[in-house]
Protein backbone atom coordinates (compact mmCIF):
# COMPACT_ATOMS: atom_id res chain seq x y z
CA UNK A 1 0.00 0.00 0.00
CA UNK A 2 1.53 3.27 -1.06
CA UNK A 3 1.37 6.40 1.02
CA UNK A 4 0.13 9.63 -0.48
CA UNK A 5 2.84 11.81 -1.98
CA UNK A 6 4.29 14.28 0.48
CA UNK A 7 4.52 17.21 -1.92
CA UNK A 8 1.05 18.31 -0.81
CA UNK A 9 1.25 21.14 1.64
CA UNK A 10 -0.38 20.52 5.01
CA UNK A 11 -3.72 22.15 5.20
CA UNK A 12 -3.43 25.10 7.53
CA UNK A 13 -7.09 26.04 7.69
CA UNK A 14 -9.49 23.30 6.56
CA UNK A 15 -11.86 25.52 4.56
CA UNK A 16 -13.13 22.40 2.82
CA UNK A 17 -14.36 21.02 6.13
CA UNK A 18 -15.91 24.36 7.11
CA UNK A 19 -17.72 24.48 3.78
CA UNK A 20 -19.50 21.25 4.80
CA UNK A 21 -19.97 22.09 8.48
CA UNK A 22 -21.45 25.58 8.01
CA UNK A 23 -24.58 24.57 6.02
CA UNK A 24 -24.96 21.44 8.15
CA UNK A 25 -25.02 23.56 11.30
CA UNK A 26 -27.37 26.08 9.69
CA UNK A 27 -29.70 23.23 8.72
CA UNK A 28 -29.76 21.92 12.28
CA UNK A 29 -30.47 25.40 13.65
CA UNK A 30 -33.21 25.80 11.04
CA UNK A 31 -35.14 22.74 12.29
CA UNK A 32 -36.42 24.32 15.55
CA UNK A 33 -36.73 27.77 13.96
CA UNK A 34 -39.25 26.67 11.33
CA UNK A 35 -40.28 29.49 9.02
CA UNK A 36 -38.26 31.94 11.14
CA UNK A 37 -35.19 30.19 9.69
CA UNK A 38 -35.67 32.57 6.77
CA UNK A 39 -33.59 34.96 8.87
CA UNK A 40 -30.67 32.57 8.32
CA UNK A 41 -30.80 33.13 4.57
CA UNK A 42 -28.68 36.28 4.40
CA UNK A 43 -25.97 35.28 6.90
CA UNK A 44 -25.97 31.73 5.51
CA UNK A 45 -25.57 32.88 1.93
CA UNK A 46 -22.79 35.33 2.85
CA UNK A 47 -20.93 32.82 5.03
CA UNK A 48 -21.21 30.11 2.37
CA UNK A 49 -19.92 32.39 -0.35
CA UNK A 50 -17.08 33.59 1.86
CA UNK A 51 -16.04 30.02 2.70
CA UNK A 52 -16.15 28.98 -0.95
CA UNK A 53 -14.05 31.96 -2.01
CA UNK A 54 -11.56 31.30 0.79
CA UNK A 55 -11.35 27.67 -0.34
CA UNK A 56 -10.77 28.73 -3.95
CA UNK A 57 -8.09 31.24 -2.98
CA UNK A 58 -6.43 28.60 -0.86
CA UNK A 59 -6.24 26.33 -3.92
CA UNK A 60 -4.97 29.18 -6.08
CA UNK A 61 -2.14 29.99 -3.65
CA UNK A 62 -1.29 26.58 -2.19
CA UNK A 63 -2.36 24.12 -4.85
CA UNK A 64 -4.45 21.06 -3.98
CA UNK A 65 -4.81 20.49 -0.24
CA UNK A 66 -5.89 17.46 1.79
CA UNK A 67 -7.46 17.39 5.21
CA UNK A 68 -7.34 14.27 7.34
CA UNK A 69 -10.58 14.36 9.31
CA UNK A 70 -9.93 13.71 13.00
CA UNK A 71 -6.24 13.24 12.29
CA UNK A 72 -6.75 9.74 10.87
CA UNK A 73 -4.60 9.07 7.83
CA UNK A 74 -5.85 7.17 4.77
CA UNK A 75 -6.55 4.32 4.17
CA UNK A 76 -8.29 3.99 7.54
CA UNK A 77 -9.26 7.62 7.84
CA UNK A 78 -11.49 9.58 5.53
CA UNK A 79 -9.81 12.50 3.84
CA UNK A 80 -11.21 15.67 2.36
CA UNK A 81 -9.57 16.95 -0.76
CA UNK A 82 -9.71 20.46 -2.13
CA UNK A 83 -8.39 20.98 -5.64
CA UNK A 84 -9.31 23.28 -8.49
CA UNK A 85 -12.30 21.20 -9.57
CA UNK A 86 -13.71 20.99 -6.03
CA UNK A 87 -13.17 24.68 -5.44
CA UNK A 88 -14.87 25.69 -8.69
CA UNK A 89 -17.94 23.60 -7.82
CA UNK A 90 -17.94 24.99 -4.26
CA UNK A 91 -18.03 28.55 -5.57
CA UNK A 92 -20.78 27.90 -8.12
CA UNK A 93 -22.80 26.03 -5.50
CA UNK A 94 -22.43 28.93 -3.07
CA UNK A 95 -23.52 31.47 -5.69
CA UNK A 96 -26.57 29.47 -6.80
CA UNK A 97 -27.65 28.28 -3.35
CA UNK A 98 -27.10 31.71 -1.85
CA UNK A 99 -29.23 33.35 -4.52
CA UNK A 100 -31.93 30.70 -4.09
CA UNK A 101 -31.89 31.26 -0.32
CA UNK A 102 -32.35 35.02 -0.78
CA UNK A 103 -35.08 34.38 -3.32
CA UNK A 104 -36.89 32.03 -0.92
CA UNK A 105 -36.81 34.39 2.06
CA UNK A 106 -40.23 35.93 1.43
CA UNK A 107 -41.62 32.78 -0.24
CA UNK A 108 -41.02 30.54 2.77
CA UNK A 109 -40.55 33.21 5.43
CA UNK A 110 -42.67 33.98 8.52
CA UNK A 111 -44.80 36.40 6.49
CA UNK A 112 -45.68 33.72 3.95
CA UNK A 113 -48.68 32.60 5.93
CA UNK A 114 -47.31 31.44 9.26
CA UNK A 115 -46.03 28.03 10.18
CA UNK A 116 -47.03 26.11 7.11
CA UNK A 117 -45.53 22.66 6.63
CA UNK A 118 -43.78 23.80 3.47
CA UNK A 119 -42.12 26.78 5.12
CA UNK A 120 -41.17 24.63 8.07
CA UNK A 121 -39.51 21.95 5.93
CA UNK A 122 -37.91 24.10 3.28
CA UNK A 123 -35.07 25.75 5.21
CA UNK A 124 -33.51 22.63 6.74
CA UNK A 125 -33.79 20.94 3.33
CA UNK A 126 -32.07 23.86 1.61
CA UNK A 127 -29.15 23.88 4.02
CA UNK A 128 -28.81 20.09 4.15
CA UNK A 129 -28.79 19.99 0.36
CA UNK A 130 -26.02 22.57 0.39
CA UNK A 131 -24.07 20.51 2.93
CA UNK A 132 -24.53 17.36 0.85
CA UNK A 133 -23.34 19.11 -2.31
CA UNK A 134 -20.24 20.51 -0.62
CA UNK A 135 -19.53 17.12 0.95
CA UNK A 136 -19.65 15.49 -2.49
CA UNK A 137 -17.29 18.09 -3.92
CA UNK A 138 -14.63 17.75 -1.22
CA UNK A 139 -14.81 14.00 -0.54
CA UNK A 140 -11.67 12.06 -1.34
CA UNK A 141 -13.22 8.74 -0.34
CA UNK A 142 -15.71 6.69 -2.35
CA UNK A 143 -17.76 5.58 0.66
CA UNK A 144 -17.95 9.11 2.02
CA UNK A 145 -19.27 10.05 -1.42
CA UNK A 146 -22.00 7.42 -1.04
CA UNK A 147 -23.15 8.99 2.22
CA UNK A 148 -23.08 12.50 0.76
CA UNK A 149 -25.01 11.40 -2.33
CA UNK A 150 -27.61 9.72 -0.12
CA UNK A 151 -28.03 12.93 1.84
CA UNK A 152 -28.72 14.66 -1.47
CA UNK A 153 -31.20 11.96 -2.49
CA UNK A 154 -33.19 12.26 0.72
CA UNK A 155 -33.30 16.05 0.74
CA UNK A 156 -33.97 16.13 -3.01
CA UNK A 157 -36.93 13.76 -2.83
CA UNK A 158 -38.32 15.65 0.14
CA UNK A 159 -38.04 18.94 -1.76
CA UNK A 160 -39.95 17.47 -4.70
CA UNK A 161 -42.73 16.47 -2.31
CA UNK A 162 -42.85 19.88 -0.59
CA UNK A 163 -46.13 20.93 -2.17
CA UNK A 164 -47.76 17.73 -1.00
CA UNK A 165 -50.13 17.37 -3.93
CA UNK A 166 -50.68 13.90 -5.30
CA UNK A 167 -48.69 14.29 -8.49
CA UNK A 168 -45.74 15.77 -6.55
CA UNK A 169 -45.81 12.83 -4.14
CA UNK A 170 -45.78 10.43 -7.08
CA UNK A 171 -42.90 12.33 -8.71
CA UNK A 172 -40.94 12.33 -5.46
CA UNK A 173 -41.49 8.60 -4.97
CA UNK A 174 -40.40 7.80 -8.51
CA UNK A 175 -37.28 9.94 -8.01
CA UNK A 176 -36.59 8.23 -4.69
CA UNK A 177 -36.96 4.72 -6.13
CA UNK A 178 -34.62 5.51 -9.05
CA UNK A 179 -32.10 7.21 -6.80
CA UNK A 180 -32.09 4.50 -4.11
CA UNK A 181 -31.58 1.77 -6.68
CA UNK A 182 -28.78 3.88 -8.14
CA UNK A 183 -27.12 4.27 -4.75
CA UNK A 184 -27.21 0.54 -4.09
CA UNK A 185 -25.70 -0.27 -7.49
CA UNK A 186 -23.03 2.35 -6.83
CA UNK A 187 -22.35 0.79 -3.43
CA UNK A 188 -21.95 -2.66 -5.02
CA UNK A 189 -19.29 -1.21 -7.30
CA UNK A 190 -17.61 0.39 -4.29
CA UNK A 191 -17.59 -3.00 -2.54
CA UNK A 192 -15.82 -4.59 -5.52
CA UNK A 193 -13.15 -1.88 -5.50
CA UNK A 194 -12.68 -2.39 -1.78
CA UNK A 195 -12.29 -6.12 -2.33
CA UNK A 196 -9.58 -5.43 -4.90
CA UNK A 197 -7.52 -2.88 -3.04
CA UNK A 198 -8.63 -2.68 0.60
CA UNK A 199 -9.05 1.09 0.40
CA UNK A 200 -11.59 3.56 -0.92
CA UNK A 201 -9.37 6.63 -0.85
CA UNK A 202 -9.44 7.99 -4.40
CA UNK A 203 -5.77 8.83 -4.54
CA UNK A 204 -4.66 5.47 -3.14
CA UNK A 205 -7.02 3.67 -5.52
CA UNK A 206 -5.59 5.54 -8.46
CA UNK A 207 -2.06 4.42 -7.70
CA UNK A 208 -3.21 0.87 -6.93
CA UNK A 209 -5.64 0.23 -9.77
CA UNK A 210 -4.62 -2.12 -12.51
CA UNK A 211 -6.83 -2.38 -15.58
CA UNK A 212 -8.79 -5.59 -15.38
CA UNK A 213 -12.20 -7.17 -15.34
CA UNK A 214 -13.05 -6.40 -11.73
CA UNK A 215 -12.01 -2.75 -11.95
CA UNK A 216 -14.04 -2.27 -15.14
CA UNK A 217 -17.06 -4.06 -13.61
CA UNK A 218 -16.82 -1.95 -10.47
CA UNK A 219 -16.53 1.24 -12.52
CA UNK A 220 -19.44 0.23 -14.75
CA UNK A 221 -21.67 -0.55 -11.75
CA UNK A 222 -20.82 2.73 -10.07
CA UNK A 223 -21.42 4.64 -13.31
CA UNK A 224 -24.77 2.92 -13.91
CA UNK A 225 -25.89 3.79 -10.39
CA UNK A 226 -24.79 7.39 -10.76
CA UNK A 227 -26.50 7.64 -14.16
CA UNK A 228 -29.81 6.81 -12.47
CA UNK A 229 -29.20 9.53 -9.88
CA UNK A 230 -27.89 12.00 -12.46
CA UNK A 231 -30.68 11.35 -14.99
CA UNK A 232 -28.54 10.43 -17.96
CA UNK A 233 -30.57 8.94 -20.80
CA UNK A 234 -32.15 6.32 -20.61
CA UNK A 235 -32.55 6.74 -16.85
CA UNK A 236 -33.94 10.26 -17.03
CA UNK A 237 -37.67 9.52 -16.85
CA UNK A 238 -38.02 10.63 -13.23
CA UNK A 239 -36.46 14.06 -13.78
CA UNK A 240 -39.05 16.18 -15.65
CA UNK A 241 -42.04 15.54 -13.36
CA UNK A 242 -39.87 15.84 -10.24
CA UNK A 243 -38.09 19.05 -11.24
CA UNK A 244 -41.18 20.63 -12.76
CA UNK A 245 -43.39 19.77 -9.78
CA UNK A 246 -41.17 21.12 -7.01
CA UNK A 247 -41.56 24.75 -5.84
CA UNK A 248 -39.44 27.06 -8.01
CA UNK A 249 -36.53 27.54 -5.55
CA UNK A 250 -36.32 23.78 -4.99
CA UNK A 251 -36.44 23.11 -8.76
CA UNK A 252 -33.59 25.57 -9.20
CA UNK A 253 -31.43 23.72 -6.68
CA UNK A 254 -32.29 20.28 -8.02
CA UNK A 255 -31.84 21.05 -11.68
CA UNK A 256 -28.82 23.32 -11.34
CA UNK A 257 -26.79 21.48 -8.73
CA UNK A 258 -28.08 18.16 -7.39
CA UNK A 259 -27.90 16.29 -10.70
CA UNK A 260 -24.41 17.75 -11.24
CA UNK A 261 -23.19 16.02 -8.09
CA UNK A 262 -23.65 12.63 -9.75
CA UNK A 263 -21.93 13.84 -12.90
CA UNK A 264 -19.08 15.18 -10.77
CA UNK A 265 -18.59 11.74 -9.20
CA UNK A 266 -18.64 10.01 -12.61
CA UNK A 267 -16.02 12.48 -13.87
CA UNK A 268 -13.87 11.94 -10.77
CA UNK A 269 -14.25 8.19 -11.16
CA UNK A 270 -13.04 7.88 -14.74
CA UNK A 271 -10.49 10.68 -14.82
CA UNK A 272 -9.05 10.49 -11.31
CA UNK A 273 -9.68 7.02 -9.88
CA UNK A 274 -9.85 4.53 -12.74
CA UNK A 275 -8.34 6.29 -15.76
CA UNK A 276 -6.64 3.07 -16.83
CA UNK A 277 -9.95 1.19 -16.93
CA UNK A 278 -11.70 3.74 -19.15
CA UNK A 279 -11.64 1.91 -22.45
CA UNK A 280 -12.55 3.43 -25.80
CA UNK A 281 -15.77 1.39 -25.91
CA UNK A 282 -16.82 2.65 -22.51
CA UNK A 283 -16.13 6.31 -23.15
CA UNK A 284 -17.82 6.11 -26.55
CA UNK A 285 -20.87 4.47 -24.93
CA UNK A 286 -21.13 7.32 -22.41
CA UNK A 287 -20.80 9.77 -25.29
CA UNK A 288 -23.55 8.04 -27.29
CA UNK A 289 -25.91 8.12 -24.30
CA UNK A 290 -25.10 11.81 -23.88
CA UNK A 291 -25.78 12.43 -27.57
CA UNK A 292 -29.15 10.64 -27.43
CA UNK A 293 -29.99 12.64 -24.30
CA UNK A 294 -29.25 15.89 -26.13
CA UNK A 295 -31.46 15.09 -29.12
CA UNK A 296 -34.22 13.28 -27.23
CA UNK A 297 -34.42 15.79 -24.37
CA UNK A 298 -34.49 18.72 -26.79
CA UNK A 299 -37.21 17.18 -28.94
CA UNK A 300 -39.36 16.55 -25.87
CA UNK A 301 -38.70 20.07 -24.60
CA UNK A 302 -40.00 21.33 -27.92
CA UNK A 303 -43.32 19.56 -27.37
CA UNK A 304 -44.11 20.67 -23.80
CA UNK A 305 -46.99 23.00 -23.10
CA UNK A 306 -45.86 24.01 -19.60
CA UNK A 307 -42.91 26.31 -18.98
CA UNK A 308 -41.38 24.37 -16.10
CA UNK A 309 -41.52 21.15 -18.10
CA UNK A 310 -39.70 22.84 -21.00
CA UNK A 311 -36.97 23.90 -18.57
CA UNK A 312 -36.85 20.44 -16.98
CA UNK A 313 -36.52 18.63 -20.32
CA UNK A 314 -33.85 21.12 -21.28
CA UNK A 315 -31.95 19.88 -18.21
CA UNK A 316 -32.13 16.33 -19.61
CA UNK A 317 -30.67 17.63 -22.88
CA UNK A 318 -28.01 19.81 -21.29
CA UNK A 319 -26.84 16.96 -19.05
CA UNK A 320 -26.10 15.08 -22.26
CA UNK A 321 -23.37 17.57 -23.19
CA UNK A 322 -21.52 16.75 -20.00
CA UNK A 323 -21.08 13.16 -21.11
CA UNK A 324 -19.56 14.14 -24.45
CA UNK A 325 -16.42 15.01 -22.52
CA UNK A 326 -15.70 11.34 -21.86
CA UNK A 327 -15.09 10.23 -25.47
CA UNK A 328 -13.52 13.58 -26.34
CA UNK A 329 -11.07 13.64 -23.46
CA UNK A 330 -10.36 9.95 -24.04
CA UNK A 331 -9.80 8.94 -20.43
CA UNK A 332 -7.90 5.85 -21.55
CA UNK A 333 -4.13 5.69 -21.41
CA UNK A 334 -2.04 8.44 -22.93
CA UNK A 335 -3.31 11.98 -22.49
CA UNK A 336 -3.91 13.52 -25.87
CA UNK A 337 -3.18 17.14 -26.75
CA UNK A 338 -6.91 17.84 -26.78
CA UNK A 339 -7.64 16.15 -23.45
CA UNK A 340 -7.32 19.36 -21.44
CA UNK A 341 -9.72 21.26 -23.70
CA UNK A 342 -12.33 18.48 -23.69
CA UNK A 343 -12.14 17.93 -19.94
CA UNK A 344 -12.29 21.63 -19.17
CA UNK A 345 -15.12 22.08 -21.69
CA UNK A 346 -17.24 19.43 -20.01
CA UNK A 347 -16.62 20.81 -16.52
CA UNK A 348 -17.19 24.35 -17.75
CA UNK A 349 -20.52 23.28 -19.17
CA UNK A 350 -21.55 21.87 -15.80
CA UNK A 351 -20.49 25.09 -14.08
CA UNK A 352 -22.11 27.48 -16.57
CA UNK A 353 -25.34 25.51 -16.76
CA UNK A 354 -25.90 25.77 -13.01
CA UNK A 355 -26.60 29.52 -12.64
CA UNK A 356 -28.37 29.66 -16.02
CA UNK A 357 -30.76 26.83 -15.14
CA UNK A 358 -31.36 28.20 -11.65
CA UNK A 359 -32.19 31.60 -13.19
CA UNK A 360 -34.62 29.95 -15.60
CA UNK A 361 -36.48 28.11 -12.85
CA UNK A 362 -36.64 31.20 -10.63
CA UNK A 363 -37.93 33.30 -13.54
CA UNK A 364 -40.43 30.55 -14.39
CA UNK A 365 -41.56 30.52 -10.77
CA UNK A 366 -42.16 34.28 -10.83
CA UNK A 367 -44.16 34.05 -14.05
CA UNK A 368 -46.18 31.21 -12.55
CA UNK A 369 -46.84 33.33 -9.49
CA UNK A 370 -47.95 36.26 -11.65
CA UNK A 371 -50.07 34.35 -14.15
CA UNK A 372 -51.33 31.67 -11.77
CA UNK A 373 -50.12 28.81 -13.97
CA UNK A 374 -47.08 27.94 -16.05
CA UNK A 375 -49.04 26.93 -19.15
CA UNK A 376 -47.32 28.56 -22.10
CA UNK A 377 -50.64 29.80 -23.47
CA UNK A 378 -51.17 31.82 -20.31
CA UNK A 379 -47.75 33.43 -20.48
CA UNK A 380 -48.25 35.21 -23.79
CA UNK A 381 -46.91 38.74 -23.55
CA UNK A 382 -45.73 38.34 -19.98
CA UNK A 383 -42.55 40.27 -20.76
CA UNK A 384 -44.66 43.42 -20.55
CA UNK A 385 -45.46 42.81 -16.89
CA UNK A 386 -42.30 41.00 -15.82
CA UNK A 387 -39.64 42.53 -18.06
CA UNK A 388 -36.72 41.71 -15.78
CA UNK A 389 -37.73 38.09 -15.27
CA UNK A 390 -38.25 37.65 -18.99
CA UNK A 391 -34.86 39.24 -19.67
CA UNK A 392 -33.24 36.91 -17.10
CA UNK A 393 -34.86 33.96 -18.84
CA UNK A 394 -33.55 35.19 -22.19
CA UNK A 395 -30.04 35.74 -20.86
CA UNK A 396 -30.00 32.25 -19.35
CA UNK A 397 -31.34 30.90 -22.65
CA UNK A 398 -28.40 32.55 -24.45
CA UNK A 399 -26.03 30.58 -22.24
CA UNK A 400 -27.90 27.31 -22.84
CA UNK A 401 -27.86 27.86 -26.59
CA UNK A 402 -24.15 28.57 -26.41
CA UNK A 403 -24.20 32.12 -27.74
CA UNK A 404 -21.03 34.13 -27.11
CA UNK A 405 -19.93 35.58 -24.72
CA UNK A 406 -21.73 33.27 -22.27
CA UNK A 407 -20.18 30.53 -20.18
CA UNK A 408 -22.15 28.04 -22.28
CA UNK A 409 -20.35 29.33 -25.36
CA UNK A 410 -16.92 28.84 -23.80
CA UNK A 411 -17.85 25.28 -22.83
CA UNK A 412 -19.20 24.36 -26.25
CA UNK A 413 -16.24 26.05 -27.95
CA UNK A 414 -13.81 23.95 -25.93
CA UNK A 415 -15.77 20.76 -26.65
CA UNK A 416 -16.03 21.59 -30.37
CA UNK A 417 -12.32 22.33 -30.78
CA UNK A 418 -11.40 19.12 -28.99
CA UNK A 419 -13.79 17.19 -31.25
CA UNK A 420 -12.08 18.75 -34.28
CA UNK A 421 -8.60 18.06 -32.95
CA UNK A 422 -9.38 14.46 -32.09
CA UNK A 423 -11.08 13.86 -35.44
CA UNK A 424 -14.35 12.70 -33.85
CA UNK A 425 -16.54 14.69 -36.20
CA UNK A 426 -19.76 12.90 -35.23
CA UNK A 427 -19.86 14.68 -31.86
CA UNK A 428 -19.67 18.00 -33.71
CA UNK A 429 -22.84 17.10 -35.59
CA UNK A 430 -24.56 16.24 -32.30
CA UNK A 431 -23.45 19.45 -30.62
CA UNK A 432 -24.60 21.65 -33.51
CA UNK A 433 -27.93 19.82 -33.70
CA UNK A 434 -28.30 20.22 -29.94
CA UNK A 435 -27.62 23.94 -30.09
CA UNK A 436 -30.11 24.42 -32.92
CA UNK A 437 -32.74 22.43 -31.04
CA UNK A 438 -32.05 24.49 -27.92
CA UNK A 439 -32.61 27.63 -29.99
CA UNK A 440 -35.87 26.13 -31.24
CA UNK A 441 -37.35 25.22 -27.88
CA UNK A 442 -36.13 28.36 -26.12
CA UNK A 443 -37.18 30.81 -28.85
CA UNK A 444 -40.57 29.08 -28.91
CA UNK A 445 -40.93 30.09 -25.26
CA UNK A 446 -39.34 33.54 -25.59
CA UNK A 447 -41.55 34.27 -28.57
CA UNK A 448 -44.64 33.83 -26.40
CA UNK A 449 -43.18 36.06 -23.69
CA UNK A 450 -42.55 38.88 -26.12
CA UNK A 451 -45.63 38.85 -28.33
CA UNK A 452 -49.27 39.05 -27.53
CA UNK A 453 -52.40 41.15 -27.59
CA UNK A 454 -52.49 44.58 -26.03
CA UNK A 455 -55.10 43.89 -23.39
CA UNK A 456 -53.88 41.47 -20.73
CA UNK A 457 -55.64 39.71 -17.90
CA UNK A 458 -54.66 41.20 -14.54
CA UNK A 459 -51.54 39.59 -13.10
CA UNK A 460 -50.66 39.07 -9.49
CA UNK A 461 -47.94 41.49 -8.37
CA UNK A 462 -44.37 40.22 -8.21
CA UNK A 463 -41.60 41.83 -6.21
CA UNK A 464 -38.98 43.48 -8.41
CA UNK A 465 -36.20 42.31 -6.07
CA UNK A 466 -37.03 38.72 -6.95
CA UNK A 467 -36.70 39.40 -10.63
CA UNK A 468 -33.27 40.94 -10.05
CA UNK A 469 -32.09 37.79 -8.25
CA UNK A 470 -32.97 35.70 -11.30
CA UNK A 471 -31.24 38.27 -13.46
CA UNK A 472 -28.13 38.20 -11.29
CA UNK A 473 -27.91 34.42 -11.67
CA UNK A 474 -28.36 34.59 -15.43
CA UNK A 475 -25.77 37.36 -15.53
CA UNK A 476 -23.26 35.29 -13.59
CA UNK A 477 -23.54 32.61 -16.27
CA UNK A 478 -22.58 35.25 -18.84
CA UNK A 479 -19.79 36.61 -16.63
CA UNK A 480 -18.37 33.11 -16.40
CA UNK A 481 -17.85 33.31 -20.16
CA UNK A 482 -16.40 36.81 -20.11
CA UNK A 483 -13.96 36.01 -17.32
CA UNK A 484 -13.32 32.41 -18.28
CA UNK A 485 -9.55 32.55 -17.71
CA UNK A 486 -9.70 32.58 -13.90
CA UNK A 487 -11.93 29.50 -13.60
CA UNK A 488 -9.92 27.89 -16.40
CA UNK A 489 -6.69 28.28 -14.45
CA UNK A 490 -8.40 27.21 -11.24
CA UNK A 491 -9.71 24.03 -12.83
CA UNK A 492 -6.25 22.97 -13.96
CA UNK A 493 -4.90 22.95 -10.39
CA UNK A 494 -4.65 19.39 -9.20
CA UNK A 495 -6.04 17.95 -12.43
CA UNK A 496 -4.65 14.46 -12.53
CA UNK A 497 -4.23 13.87 -16.23
CA UNK A 498 -1.87 16.72 -16.89
CA UNK A 499 -1.91 17.03 -20.66
CA UNK A 500 -0.28 19.33 -23.15
CA UNK A 501 -2.23 22.51 -23.66
CA UNK A 502 -3.76 22.49 -27.10
CA UNK A 503 -5.81 25.66 -27.05
CA UNK A 504 -5.04 27.72 -30.07
Amino acid sequence: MSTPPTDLLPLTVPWAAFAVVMPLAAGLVAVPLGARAAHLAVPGALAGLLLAVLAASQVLTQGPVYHEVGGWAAPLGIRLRLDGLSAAFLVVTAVVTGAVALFSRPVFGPSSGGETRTAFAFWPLLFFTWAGLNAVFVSADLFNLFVALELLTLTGAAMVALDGRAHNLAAALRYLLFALLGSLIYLLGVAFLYALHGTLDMQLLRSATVPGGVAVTAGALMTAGLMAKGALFPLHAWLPPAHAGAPAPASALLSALVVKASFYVIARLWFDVLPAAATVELTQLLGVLGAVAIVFGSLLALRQERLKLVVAYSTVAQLGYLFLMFPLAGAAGEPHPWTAAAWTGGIFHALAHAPAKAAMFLAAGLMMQAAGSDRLDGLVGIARDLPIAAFAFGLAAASLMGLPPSGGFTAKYLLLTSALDSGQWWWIAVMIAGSLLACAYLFRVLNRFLTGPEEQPALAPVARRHQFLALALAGSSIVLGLLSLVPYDLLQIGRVTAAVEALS
Partner: protein
Amino acid sequence: MTSAILFTLCGIALAGIGAFGLVAHAHLLRRILALNIIGSGVFLVFGGLGYRLPQSGADPVPQAMVITGIVVALAATALAVTLAVRLFEETGRTSLPGEGSADEHAAD
Protein backbone atom coordinates in the same frame (compact mmCIF):
# COMPACT_ATOMS: atom_id res chain seq x y z
CA MET B 1 -15.08 -22.17 -1.89
CA THR B 2 -13.99 -19.57 0.61
CA SER B 3 -16.50 -17.86 2.85
CA ALA B 4 -15.95 -14.57 1.03
CA ILE B 5 -17.08 -16.15 -2.24
CA LEU B 6 -20.06 -17.80 -0.53
CA PHE B 7 -21.17 -14.48 0.97
CA THR B 8 -20.64 -12.70 -2.32
CA LEU B 9 -22.72 -15.21 -4.28
CA CYS B 10 -25.51 -15.16 -1.68
CA GLY B 11 -25.48 -11.38 -1.67
CA ILE B 12 -25.66 -11.18 -5.44
CA ALA B 13 -28.51 -13.71 -5.48
CA LEU B 14 -30.39 -11.61 -2.92
CA ALA B 15 -29.80 -8.46 -4.93
CA GLY B 16 -31.10 -10.27 -8.01
CA ILE B 17 -34.27 -11.36 -6.19
CA GLY B 18 -34.76 -7.79 -5.02
CA ALA B 19 -34.21 -6.40 -8.51
CA PHE B 20 -36.83 -8.81 -9.86
CA GLY B 21 -39.27 -7.68 -7.19
CA LEU B 22 -38.61 -4.04 -7.99
CA VAL B 23 -39.37 -4.54 -11.67
CA ALA B 24 -42.16 -7.11 -11.41
CA HIS B 25 -44.35 -5.40 -8.84
CA ALA B 26 -46.13 -2.08 -9.06
CA HIS B 27 -47.30 -2.00 -5.45
CA LEU B 28 -45.21 0.64 -3.73
CA LEU B 29 -44.73 -1.25 -0.49
CA ARG B 30 -43.44 -4.28 -2.39
CA ARG B 31 -41.08 -2.06 -4.33
CA ILE B 32 -39.72 -0.46 -1.16
CA LEU B 33 -39.25 -3.93 0.34
CA ALA B 34 -37.54 -5.05 -2.87
CA LEU B 35 -35.10 -2.15 -2.55
CA ASN B 36 -34.39 -3.26 1.01
CA ILE B 37 -33.68 -6.80 -0.18
CA ILE B 38 -31.26 -5.44 -2.80
CA GLY B 39 -29.68 -3.41 -0.02
CA SER B 40 -29.31 -6.48 2.17
CA GLY B 41 -27.64 -8.29 -0.70
CA VAL B 42 -25.17 -5.48 -1.28
CA PHE B 43 -24.43 -5.24 2.45
CA LEU B 44 -23.87 -9.01 2.57
CA VAL B 45 -21.35 -8.76 -0.28
CA PHE B 46 -19.65 -5.84 1.40
CA GLY B 47 -19.58 -7.43 4.84
CA GLY B 48 -18.39 -10.78 3.56
CA LEU B 49 -15.46 -9.10 1.88
CA GLY B 50 -14.08 -8.26 5.30
CA TYR B 51 -12.76 -11.80 5.43
CA ARG B 52 -11.28 -11.84 1.94
CA LEU B 53 -7.72 -12.50 3.15
CA PRO B 54 -8.08 -15.25 5.77
CA GLN B 55 -4.40 -15.12 6.74
CA SER B 56 -4.73 -11.52 7.93
CA GLY B 57 -7.92 -12.03 9.93
CA ALA B 58 -11.18 -10.19 9.57
CA ASP B 59 -11.08 -6.60 8.31
CA PRO B 60 -13.46 -4.48 10.44
CA VAL B 61 -13.71 -1.57 8.00
CA PRO B 62 -16.45 -3.11 5.78
CA GLN B 63 -18.56 -3.80 8.85
CA ALA B 64 -18.30 -0.15 9.81
CA MET B 65 -19.35 0.87 6.32
CA VAL B 66 -22.25 -1.61 6.27
CA ILE B 67 -23.55 -0.19 9.55
CA THR B 68 -23.45 3.29 8.02
CA GLY B 69 -25.19 1.93 4.95
CA ILE B 70 -27.93 0.33 7.05
CA VAL B 71 -28.56 3.65 8.82
CA VAL B 72 -28.83 5.38 5.45
CA ALA B 73 -31.14 2.65 4.11
CA LEU B 74 -33.35 2.95 7.20
CA ALA B 75 -33.73 6.70 6.70
CA ALA B 76 -34.46 6.24 3.01
CA THR B 77 -37.03 3.52 3.71
CA ALA B 78 -38.75 5.72 6.28
CA LEU B 79 -39.00 8.57 3.77
CA ALA B 80 -40.23 6.27 0.99
CA VAL B 81 -42.89 4.67 3.21
CA THR B 82 -44.04 8.10 4.40
CA LEU B 83 -44.40 9.29 0.83
CA ALA B 84 -46.23 6.11 -0.15
CA VAL B 85 -48.65 6.47 2.77
CA ARG B 86 -49.31 10.12 1.89
CA LEU B 87 -49.89 9.15 -1.74
CA PHE B 88 -52.39 6.52 -0.60
CA GLU B 89 -54.16 9.02 1.65
CA GLU B 90 -54.36 11.59 -1.14
CA THR B 91 -55.43 9.34 -4.01
CA GLY B 92 -56.17 5.86 -2.68
CA ARG B 93 -53.49 4.52 -5.00
CA THR B 94 -50.91 1.96 -3.93
CA SER B 95 -48.82 2.25 -7.09
CA LEU B 96 -47.34 5.06 -9.10
CA PRO B 97 -49.68 6.51 -11.72
CA GLY B 98 -49.11 5.14 -15.19
CA GLU B 99 -47.76 1.83 -13.98
CA GLY B 100 -49.24 -1.65 -13.86
CA SER B 101 -52.49 -1.67 -11.94
CA ALA B 102 -52.62 -5.45 -11.56
CA ASP B 103 -52.26 -5.44 -7.79
CA GLU B 104 -53.92 -2.13 -7.23
CA HIS B 105 -57.06 -1.99 -5.14
CA ALA B 106 -58.88 0.97 -6.52
CA ALA B 107 -57.66 3.58 -8.94
CA ASP B 108 -58.55 7.00 -7.57
